[in-house]
């Protein structure tokens, strides 16, 4: 599928400025990022329109001023909160990308359980080495509950799906890049 994308607002003589895009996976499975790779040859088209800042694709560790931020995964520990806030303060447009970021997703299935009980069950109640709950300053603390990202910061747009299909991502991103109101309809709109 090819979609013609108007160039982003261009400067007088400098040619179209590339949009800066940052992406991150909080408590996600990286499935949404894999789906981003499902853009296949459209990735080349995308590369002409955008430049990646912080992202698993570039391995840049901190996000600078960006036009678009894509967040996969829900908010499950203190590090997720820091990364999410960094994205919110640096990205003009923040997009929740996939079921976990949009609605909590599978990580949020632990919300019916006590987090202390979960840790105890996993690290203490099983036969095998250790028997201690890992406790190191390097490890981020778990939150009491897992939250969709819009329950922690303001979010501009949402792409549901577990993961969203490459086509849905393409439709949505090209809408945003072209300055259109992004729209997803069935069957591209899916929650699973």
């Amino acid at each position, binding site marked *: 599928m090819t979609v013609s994308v108007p160039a982003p607002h261009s400067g007088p003589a400098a040619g179209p400025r590339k949009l800066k895009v940052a992406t991150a996976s909080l408590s996600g499975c990286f499935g949404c990022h894999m789906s981003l790779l499902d853009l296949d040859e459209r990735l080349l088209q995308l590369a002409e329109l955008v430049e990646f800042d912080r992202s698993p694709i570039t391995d840049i560790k901190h996000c600078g001023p960006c036009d678009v931020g894509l967040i996969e995964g829900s908010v499950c520990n203190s590090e997720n909160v820091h990364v999410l806030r960094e994205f919110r303060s640096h990205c003009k447009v923040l997009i929740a990308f996939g079921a976990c970021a949009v609605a909590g*997703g599978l990580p949020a299935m632990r919300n019916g359980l006590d987090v202390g009980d979960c840790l105890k069950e996993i690290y203490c109640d099983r036969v095998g080495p250790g028997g201690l709950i890992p406790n190191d300053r390097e490890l981020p603390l778990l939150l009491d509950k897992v939250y*969709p990202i819009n329950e922690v910061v303001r979010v501009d747009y949402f792409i549901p799906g577990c993961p969203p299909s490459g086509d849905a991502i393409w439709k949505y991103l090209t809408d945003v890049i072209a300055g259109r109101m992004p*729209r997803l*309809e069935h069957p591209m709109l899916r929650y699973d």
Partner: protein
Amino acid sequence: MSEIPNSFTLDGQLVPFEPGQTILQAALAAGHYIPHLCSSPELKPHGSCKLCTVVVNGRHGSACTAHAMPGQDVQSDTPDLNGKRRLQVQMLFVEGNHFCPGCEKSGNCKLQAVAYDLEMLNPHFPHFFPQRPVDASHPDILLDRNRCIMCEQCVEASRDIDGKEVFGLAGRGLASHLVVNSPSGLLGDSALEAGDKAANICPVGAIVHKRVGYAKPIGARDYDTLGIRAQARAAAEGEGP
């Protein structure tokens, strides 16, 4: 004296009806979809979800309970009503625990299908993440209250069709929940059988059959290709003259 024709207008289109039909029944028979969740053709409408709210001659009413009358002017597919319907569906999502990616009803679920139709992109409201018990005591049927939208279809079907009164709603407001009529309160001790209407009418994944989950692959499920609105149109065309 000329006869008044049995028809009304729905979003400006003429819809014929049989005397006694509700606005929803007449609209569906003519292939016009009005979003609805708690009504089913086999049950007496009781108008609890309010998703089918339409504006009839300037006044709001439930299309599933309001009788069709000659000359009515009915508005349904308007940005205002659809926006309100979307909010209602979003409230249903955050009030329960709807993890569609792992739900065996996904792709066959009416709540999900209506949400797609209304282009719901997120649940909007803070999630309640309520604690609701799952009842797996029955040999053939699983009751997962996390996904129950309290539409009462199982209650009515059990009472009026199966003649058993297996289900009931208890509590009020936020504390409303589905209860089972058995000495232990468990489904396994109730009179419910897999062939009962009540075991086969749930629009969501709250009452599901065991051992058949995920049997239909993605792509072949009820709403994978045709959305709920397109299916309503196709059904009316199939039954039409």
